[in-house]
């Protein structure tokens, strides 16, 4: 539409009537030449009562602290527009109002000059803005004071924000991290899981409690349990990802303490049986040596005695060695290929002292060709099996059969420790893996055995389950991922599932 086609006067009135701002036009003497509908409504005045009046006559005294007249004169004098000024309206009994205003010079008929004043009530706008800002500060302080790592990324996994806890845990600041891929901060091989995760982010809803080790500035890695949630826009599109991580360093230290305490408790419990294991071969060696000193006679007998001396000492040393290995606080994250049959044999040796007389053990170690290796920490796995065996023996105070089974199920190694004892009452089954749950009447057991076992098995990426029947017995099933085929010790990180 061409401007010339407009009827200027009717356009002017239409604009004045519809613009949601208060508009006044002044001449050089600051007398009102024009006031629009919005102004008249707001000031509860009429056009007749307003036109020709001077600025200070029509403006409430509440505005008088703003040098509005001065500013209008300056605009008229200088011919330059004054943009977006702010004035406040204070009056008794009325809540504070804030106006934003601009003053623009105008050319009037006959060479006279004037100015147009446009005012907007921005009180609500400002209040909303203030509230939003306060909320933002509040949220930011939550994020900053949280003990968990709170990180946000764009849909591709590039880091956008990085909170204080993340900085404390890793030594990297938000400035170091902004724009970098989260996957690059995760240790191999889990970094690939993270990258995969972001590639499929549209399909993944919430990802909970995955453990990815995180790189720190000092070259260390820390275990972190992560929760990922998508942020979606109004159209359902993924706008980013909120990544919340729990630093597991302290938890791991506590778990290590618990394990160590449980190992010592288990050792204390089985020590009588172990003494027997050591003193028996020592007895053989000692007696064989004494027989030689006494002069047993034939060269053949002497040879036999020498064999017994050496054999007995070797047997005793083996027991002592496995004891030391078991009791030692092993490094938590260094895993090796663990011969599961050896774990079962050692555990049986430790625990069998607690077996009631009349207990038989059904255990046939697999032939060397069918050896089962799990990736893990040997003494922790031994602790698991010792606990299960001690439980089994305690369930059979009058003797019974302990059965030990070991087989492969696809990529998993399955171990079953069964007893023919009194079974677990249904009411207890759901609690047996809880810490400090015990029915042992406080005798010797800490009540931590099964809960510690459960956490160890889970950290090995496996599972520990139970089947039980009253008066028939109980079978605990441990499933562990089989070790990868390569023979050398692999450094891997225990995974929490």
């Amino acid at each position, binding site marked *: 539409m061409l401007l010339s086609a407009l009827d200027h006067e009717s356009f002017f009135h239409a604009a004045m009537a519809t613009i949601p701002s208060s508009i006044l036009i002044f001449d050089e003497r600051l007398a009102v030449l024009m006031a629009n509908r919005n102004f008249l409504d707001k000031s509860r005045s009429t056009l007749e009562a307003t036109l020709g009046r001077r600025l200070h006559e029509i403006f409430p005294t509440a505005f008088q602290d703003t040098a509005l007249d001065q500013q209008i004169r300056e605009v008229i004098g200088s011919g330059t527009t004054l943009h977006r000024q702010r004035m406040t309206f204070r009056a008794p009994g009325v809540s504070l109002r804030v106006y934003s205003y601009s003053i623009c010079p105008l050319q009037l008929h006959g060479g006279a000059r004037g100015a147009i004043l446009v005012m907007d009530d921005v009180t609500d706008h400002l209040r909303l803005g203030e509230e939003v800002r306060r909320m933002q500060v509040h949220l930011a302080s939550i994020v900053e004071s949280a003990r968990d790592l709170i990180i946000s990324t764009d849909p591709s996994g590039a880091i956008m924000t990085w909170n204080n806890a993340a900085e404390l845990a890793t030594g990297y600041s938000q400035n170091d991290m902004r724009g970098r891929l989260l996957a690059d901060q995760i240790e191999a091989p889990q970094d690939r899981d993270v990258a995969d995760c972001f590639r499929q982010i549209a399909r993944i809803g919430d990802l909970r409690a995955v453990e990815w080790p995180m790189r720190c500035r000092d070259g260390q890695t820390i275990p972190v349990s992560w929760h990922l949630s998508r942020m979606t826009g109004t159209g359902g599109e993924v706008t980013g990802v909120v990544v919340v991580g729990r630093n597991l360093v302290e938890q791991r230290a506590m778990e290590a303490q618990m394990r160590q305490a449980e190992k010592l408790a288990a050792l204390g419990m089985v020590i009588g049986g172990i003494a027997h294991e050591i003193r028996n071969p020592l007895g053989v060696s000692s007696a064989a040596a004494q027989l030689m000193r006494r002069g*047993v006679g034939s060269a053949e007998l002497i040879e036999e005695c020498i064999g017994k001396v050496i054999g007995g000492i070797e047997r005793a040393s083996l027991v002592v060695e496995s004891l030391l290995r078991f009791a030692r606080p092993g490094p938590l994250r260094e895993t090796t290929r663990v011969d599961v049959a050896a774990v079962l044999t050692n555990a049986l040796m430790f625990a069998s002292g607690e077996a009631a007389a009349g207990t038989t053990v059904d255990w046939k170690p697999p032939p060397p060709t069918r050896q089962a290796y799990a990736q893990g920490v040997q003494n922790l796995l031994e602790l698991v099996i010792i606990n299960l065996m001690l439980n089994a023996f305690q369930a059979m105070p009058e003797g019974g059969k302990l059965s030990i089974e070991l087989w492969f199920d696809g990529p998993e190694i399955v171990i079953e420790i069964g007893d023919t004892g009194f079974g677990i009452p249904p009411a207890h089954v759901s609690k047996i893996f809880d810490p400090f749950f015990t029915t042992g009447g406080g005798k010797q057991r800490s009540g931590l055995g099964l809960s510690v076992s459960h956490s160890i098995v889970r950290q090995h990426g496996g599972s520990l389950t139970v089947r039980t029947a009253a008066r028939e017995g109980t079978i605990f099933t441990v499933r562990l991922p089989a070790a990868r085929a390569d023979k050398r010790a692999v450094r891997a990180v225990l995974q929490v599932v």
Partner: protein
Amino acid sequence: MSGVDEPSSAATALVVDDDPDMCRILELALASAGCIATTVGSARGAIALFADHPFPVVFVDARLPDMDGWRLIEDLRRLRPMIRIIMISGYYFEDDVRVAQALQASEIDGFLAKPFRVEAVVAMAAALGAGGHRHPIRSGDDARLTLRQPCCRSPRCFLRT
């Protein structure tokens, strides 16, 4: 006091221990004193053997796979009250309350802790099996001390008299 190391004719003993090496070494030790030992690895085996051969002396390990050593001792005594029983164990110590009680109550006639002295084994076998060796008792003495000294000079010989 008869010579403890002297072989006595036709002395026999039964050794019950689940460790074959231990059985063999006790057999050799007893043989050195002229005592013929039969060995068996389980309590049930011992009871079965005992039915046909009433051994005068039995060495019993405290921990057997199929039965508690103490139970076996009880059963053997029931079969033959006059039998001489020596408990031999890597589990108990000489001064264990259970062992002291058993000596006091004549459940067992002697106790040997592993590792043991061969002379102690020989002395016990000779004393109990050959019937000539008796430990003098001084009244009021603690049983352990009384038994220890004059018998065979073995600090681990705790023959009950």
